[in-house]
């Protein structure tokens, strides 16, 4: 066991996989000489050389497209998008190519590749360094989308992603990078893609979340138990696609109360699918309304501190909603 933060967990796992397998190459903007703007790949250039650690031109569509080519020809590319906000020039590659290669060839070709992208707000990133993108990319059949939110999950899921024969979009909430610490086993382990995780048990209500909001929900849940004795079960979605509806529904059926919390713009966000699934599958098991809390439907949080705060759901607000739902 070693205590690490999220960014170290990702660094170490990537390092481990590169050291173990020559087919793993990484590419992205500023990842080589500079070791990444978040220092995820610090020291990799010296250790693995510039053939495996590739500083690319500023062209995200190309980064993803080149990774497709590499994956087609025997490599296991791990591409970094500097900020998730800048993945959109690669949307066509993601929708039309990455996610469709296996399907369109009836299984003849496969794409073992990972695209990593730091996403999310709370870092003074304003409109273009704060976005949540999981709803856009979660809606692409053929693409796996994961959002680990702890050092443990980041480690185990990055291993799973690199091992996966199919493409994985690996989203890292950048606010968790240095904020969230936790123990990580020194022995290799894998956290399977497609499995949600009950991060806190409880039977009064179920709170389904992921990313930074997961931690906000855990904080609110802990306070709620301390102050009101209400026990919230907190489910970490962990994988956006394919969604683990079973774990979510099991929890909801147990508690009879469901709340979905996410940072992204509320409307048509990933939480809509989760709420809809609960409604369809477990409505008759519910003892209260389905509560859905998302970011406001504005382009993104502003740079001014107070505009950023006004955007992000916080623990107080979630605490209030939890209490209200528990008491329903």
């Amino acid at each position, binding site marked *: 066991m070693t205590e690490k933060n999220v960014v170290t967990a990702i660094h170490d796992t990537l390092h481990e996989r590169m050291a173990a397998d020559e087919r793993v190459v990484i590419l992205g903007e500023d990842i080589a000489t500079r070791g990444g703007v978040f220092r995820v790949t610090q020291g990799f250039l010296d250790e693995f050389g510039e053939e495996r650690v590739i500083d690319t031109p500023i062209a995200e569509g190309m980064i993803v497209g080149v990774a497709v080519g590499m994956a087609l020809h025997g490599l296991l590319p791990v591409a970094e998008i500097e900020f998730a906000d800048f993945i959109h020039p690669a949307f066509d590659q993601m929708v039309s190519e990455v996610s469709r290669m296996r399907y*369109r060839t009836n299984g003849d070709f496969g794409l073992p590749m990972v695209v990593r992208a730091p996403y999310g707000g709370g870092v003074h990133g304003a409109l273009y360094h704060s976005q949540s993108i999981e709803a856009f990319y979660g809606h692409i059949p053929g693409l796996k989308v994961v959002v680990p939110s702890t050092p443990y999950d980041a480690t185990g899921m990055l291993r799973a992603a690199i091992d996966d024969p199919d493409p994985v979009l690996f989203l890292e909430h950048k606010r968790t990078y240095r904020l969230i610490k936790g123990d990580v086993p020194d022995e290799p382990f894998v956290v399977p893609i497609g499995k949600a995780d009950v991060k806190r048990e409880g039977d009064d209500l179920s709170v389904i979340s992921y990313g930074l909001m997961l931690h906000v929900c855990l904080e609110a849940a802990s306070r709620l138990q301390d102050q009101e004795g209400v026990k919230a079960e907190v489910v970490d979605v962990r994988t956006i696609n394919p969604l683990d509806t079973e774990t979510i529904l099991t929890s909801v059926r147990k508690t009879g109360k469901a709340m979905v919390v996410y940072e992204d713009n509320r409307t048509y966000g990933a939480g809509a699918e989760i709420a809809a699934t609960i409604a369809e599958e477990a409505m008759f098991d519910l003892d209260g309304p389905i509560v859905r809390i998302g970011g406001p439907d504005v382009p993104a949080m502003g740079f001014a501190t107070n505009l950023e705060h006004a955007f992000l759901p916080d623990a107080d607000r979630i605490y209030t909603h939890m209490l209200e739902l528990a008491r329903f």
Partner: protein
Amino acid sequence: MPSEDGDVATRVTTAASHEALGLGEDDLLSIHRTMLTARLVDEASFRLNRQGKAPFVVPVSGHEGCQVGTAWALRRGQDIWVPYYRDVAVVLVAGMTPVEIFLGLFAKADDPSSGGRQMPSHWGSRRLGIISHSSPIATQVPHAAGIAYAAKYRKEDAVVGCWFGEGATSEGAWHEGMNFAGIHKLPIVFICENNQYAISVAQAKQMAVENVADRGPAYGFPGVVVDGSDVIACYGAMRTAVDRARAGEGPTLIEAKTYRFFPHTSDDDDRSYRTREEVEAAKHRDPLHLFEHYLRKVGVLEKSAVDELAVEVKAEVDKAVDQAWSAPDPEPSSLTRHVFSEGDEA
């Protein structure tokens, strides 16, 4: 010696000589047969379209010279082909058979490219090293660069050929892929089949340069213009580019000036954007006829032999059509398969 086909003769190129390029008679005959096969596959496909048996056809006629000429310089089993939808003749060179092409045309279960999922002419075969492509234009260009990077990284002696139309050069993806290939001096040859139109849009509305090849230097590698109706000249240009790539000297952009004889696809009506005179004039530079003339000139093939061959190849093509037509359709239940790996892939 007076020519048998009138003014075509006067246009026959003499720029390239097959001997100088190391092509023997057998090569010439195979090249010719491949071009002829492509042409006859096209004609059969349109016939099937009119009969209501093939809902969608993408024609190749007019492009056989530049396709076979360039593709011929790559080696099966070693090099990689990244074609686009127009490239019937490229995939024939790569080893796809007419039966396989018609399986795709009829969207049959055994269509090697996609099992009937993609539109016809969306080629792909892992076995043959033909990289699957999609409909969106130019997305294959960064793929080709990534494959070339991987080949170089793995110290393989492979070269990647990447084909596209002149309209494709307008997409950002094209620029980005070219740029990456130039930076890393990758073993790759880009081949632009410039037929002067992107569906209806003429070249002058697509770019403000006369030659696509003029863009090579913007990426730090040479651009070469070649007569796409001259299969031997195309082979020569590609030969040089492939040798360069194999020697580690980086990419080349080859622009073959060509023309498409039929509408863009069976859904298109080209009368709105091209005069019949223009199309007829272009047919005077039919790469197949020009090459047949060349073969006669160099004494490799008699006119009568050409006619016989046409009958023979047509019979083959017709047989391929029949064979493909009677093959089974995909299972409707297969709709949900292969979204992700099923664990049993080779």
